[in-house]
């Protein structure tokens, strides 16, 4: 039981990074970025390229993957989302689906569809107090916590973070206060790219690397964001951990192949019972 809880928290943390990324872009740009799944995939592959094809140690490759993905996100913003800045949010979310197609298939085009893996030594799991913990889980725990602290610090303690919260709350007023919206949006895409990039590497370490790896995270990530309340990155973290634990516990009663259905169930339940999420106040009906 405790083991399941631990596994659940760790897999929840895997969901938490892209969920923060999604939540940040959702808040500032006001549309759900369906390309988040292929961003995860692409981050994993950029790191894979540096790690396996060039031979850079994984830690450095992960950093390069994150930076590379931040660049990809900025390019997508410049080429796709900025020309559509004044469009309604349906146009933007359809556009993000277009971006999803482009990114996922660029990955297929460049790296093929075979299953790949990072160049890491397989180690025996550690045993603590009867719990089995492997190296990947410890890495996920450390990286995810560091990333969350960094995001918290940026959001709550820096001018950039204040500007991000301001644009997310009230873009017009933010403009009146001297905040350049496009610059803040650029920063948000950059941060989202970094988070999704690290998430991709962690997902790849935890499981396998293939072009669909990110797509499989789309539902849990959206479920986490909805559960935590749209545009609330800290709510999204809690949502992600709850979903990780729920998925893990579901294996007690459901076949493991249906783990992902837990995210679907949670989305349906939240939309039915508490559509603004656990911590949100946004108006979501119409």
């Amino acid at each position, binding site marked *: 039981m405790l083991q399941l809880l631990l596994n659940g928290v760790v897999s929840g943390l895997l969901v938490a990074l892209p969920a923060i990324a999604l939540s940040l872009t959702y808040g500032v740009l006001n549309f759900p970025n369906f390309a988040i799944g292929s961003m995860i995939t692409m981050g994993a592959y950029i790191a894979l390229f540096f790690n396996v094809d060039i031979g850079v140690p994984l830690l450095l490759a992960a950093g390069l993957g994150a930076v590379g993905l931040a660049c990809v996100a900025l390019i997508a913003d410049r080429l796709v989302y900025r020309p559509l800045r004044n469009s309604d949010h349906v146009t933007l979310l359809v556009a993000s689906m277009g971006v999803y197609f482009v990114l996922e298939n660029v990955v297929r085009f460049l790296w093929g569809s075979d299953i790949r893996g990072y160049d890491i030594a397989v180690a025996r799991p550690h045993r603590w107090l009867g719990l089995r913990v492997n190296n990947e889980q410890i890495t996920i725990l450390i990286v995810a916590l560091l990333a969350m602290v960094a995001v918290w610090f940026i959001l709550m303690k820096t001018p950039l973070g*204040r*500007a991000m*919260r*301001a644009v997310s*709350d009230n873009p017009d*007023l933010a*403009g009146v*206060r001297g*905040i*350049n919206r496009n610059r803040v949006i650029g920063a948000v895409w950059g941060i989202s790219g970094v988070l999704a990039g690290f998430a991709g590497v962690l997902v790849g370490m935890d499981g396998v690397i293939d072009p669909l790896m990110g797509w499989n995270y789309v539902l849990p990530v959206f479920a986490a964001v909805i559960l935590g309340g749209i545009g609330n990155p800290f709510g999204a973290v809690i949502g992600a951990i709850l979903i990780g634990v729920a998925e893990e516990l579901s294996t007690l009663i459901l076949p493991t192949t249906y783990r992902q259905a837990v995210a679907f169930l949670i989305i349906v339940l939240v939309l039915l019972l508490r559509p603004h999420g656990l911590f949100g106040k946004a108006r979501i009906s119409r």
Partner: protein
Amino acid sequence: MSNPILTVSKLRAGYGSGGDIIKGAGFSVSQGAISTIVGPNGAGKSTLIKSLVGLLTPRDGTITLNGKDVTQLDAPAKARAGLGYVPQEHNVFRNMTIGENMTLAYEFIARETKGLKAARDRVFDIFPDLAHRAGDMAGNLSGGQRQMLAFGCALMPDPSLLLLDEPSAGLSPKYVAEMFQAVKAVNQAGVSILMIEQNVKEAMVISETAIVLVAGQVRAHMPALDFLNHPDIHALYMGTADVAAAGSV
């Protein structure tokens, strides 16, 4: 009349693909004065203010601030050029503390932090209530307190001209008086003020100039005292057919 701080001429503005709402408006605001725009509902007062602060790009005409053409600048650039703005609604960031709201109002316009403390103290002098609540969430403030905070935030970067969109709207009588007092005090400290106001009489008492906007055009531009003593003030204010005919171009 002293040097104008703001000159607007032949301004045209509207939304999306719709027609012009501001139809060639022109007026000026004197340095150091309080000017008040009045007009019937639908005259385009809010649209005018939005295009002045850069939330709406004018289609035609010019806006000159401190002798500089600022017509095409966006809101952040206009703010840096010395234009302060207090919107009527949604004028504070509700999920930030009072302190954060004030810091934010300063840092992106001044683009430095050295003067932050002095600016904050200056605003606390005018609105002492804000000082001992700096840690409270702005979203938890009452309407009047929120209005004070919005006013204070606009003052943080020390603007040369302050635009107020219905500063007394929705306030209890106690706060209305306090608000007009604050407007007067800020003006005496050297900030020129242009406001839209529904409480016409109270506003005119502290104003030097009245600007009457009807159907997107400035129909009259006169000393506030004349406006108050004008026999047709009611008609003017309500924008009846009479006035429209008299003032039409």
